[in-house]
């Protein structure tokens, strides 16, 4: 049984899941779920849709070239069963997984390296540029011209004023 990759989001299509569309030139498009199939029908480009693997690869979000990806690939010749080989493969799978995860973490860390300094720099610049918009609270208390003057309004008189034009 072969585990195919979804054409749109590049996730694994397990047996019995999803739908496949065969174009007239015999190209097969496999989709893992109706979400991917619908996006394909809307003629969206997976490289431009942010949640797909293709987008993340193109925009440098994920690791693209790594030796751990070499183990998972399409083989057209079936491997002859060998008990020792199967045992070794089963042993190697968690090890490779661990290496892959650690490398992905390192990649993410590298990608996020300058982020904190950048954010702080931006915040400092915004503060410098917009400091004139902020008034200290104590300044408002000292200088009465900065606050709105208090006006006493006679409420009952206003109501009678409002009523007269409506009746006209």
């Amino acid at each position, binding site marked *: 049984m072969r585990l195919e990759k979804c054409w749109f989001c590049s996730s694994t299509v397990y*047996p019995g899941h*999803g*739908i496949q*569309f*065969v*174009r007239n030139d015999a190209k097969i498009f496999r989709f893992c779920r109706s979400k991917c199939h619908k996006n394909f029908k*809307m003629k969206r480009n997976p490289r431009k849709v942010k949640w797909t693997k293709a987008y993340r690869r193109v925009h440098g979000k994920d690791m693209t070239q790594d030796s751990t990806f070499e183990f998972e690939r399409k083989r057209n010749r079936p491997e002859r069963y060998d008990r020792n080989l199967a045992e070794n493969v089963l042993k190697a799978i968690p090890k490779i997984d661990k290496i892959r995860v650690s490398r992905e973490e390192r990649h993410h860390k590298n990608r996020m390296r300058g982020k904190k300094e950048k954010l702080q720099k931006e915040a400092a610049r915004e503060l410098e540029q917009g400091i004139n918009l902020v008034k200290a609270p104590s300044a408002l208390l000292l200088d009465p011209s900065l606050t709105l003057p208090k006006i006493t309004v006679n409420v009952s008189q206003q109501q009678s004023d409002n009523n007269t034009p409506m009746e006209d």
Partner: protein
Amino acid sequence: MAAAAASRFGHSLFGGGLRNCFPGLFTTTSHKLTCNTNFLSQQQRTFIQMRTVLKVVDNSGAKKVMCIQALKGRKGARLGDTIIASVKEAHPNGKVKKGKVVYGVVVRAAMQKGRCDGSEVKFDDNAVVLVDKQGQPIGTRVFGPVPHELRQKKHVKILTLAGHIA
């Protein structure tokens, strides 16, 4: 924005009575527009039933046939089913002439069909390969992809003639 502006304008001129009718008018038109786009983008695919016109993808001489009877299924034929059809368009000197009644196997259907493992498969168009009453193909070539389900339906000859099996 336009609807809000219009409603405010109406209120100041004519009072509250007319205000209610403006937003209603705007919402109905926009709703109709969205319905139209949905209808165009997602057409519902159905069974191959009486009067369905199918493409003939072999060299029997017919180009288009119209289904006149599905031999199996209450609602109509699906991928891999046999139909009776009448030839609507044909090449001038082929084996099959226009107006003849022929048997055909549906080798491509735009409506999705479940596979044995639970996934689904669908094709670009509705296509048929003409066969005789015993199930032997009339033509000697089959164009385009055909599904491997034809093997279960005992149409191995069509599978061997086909170039691509999906």
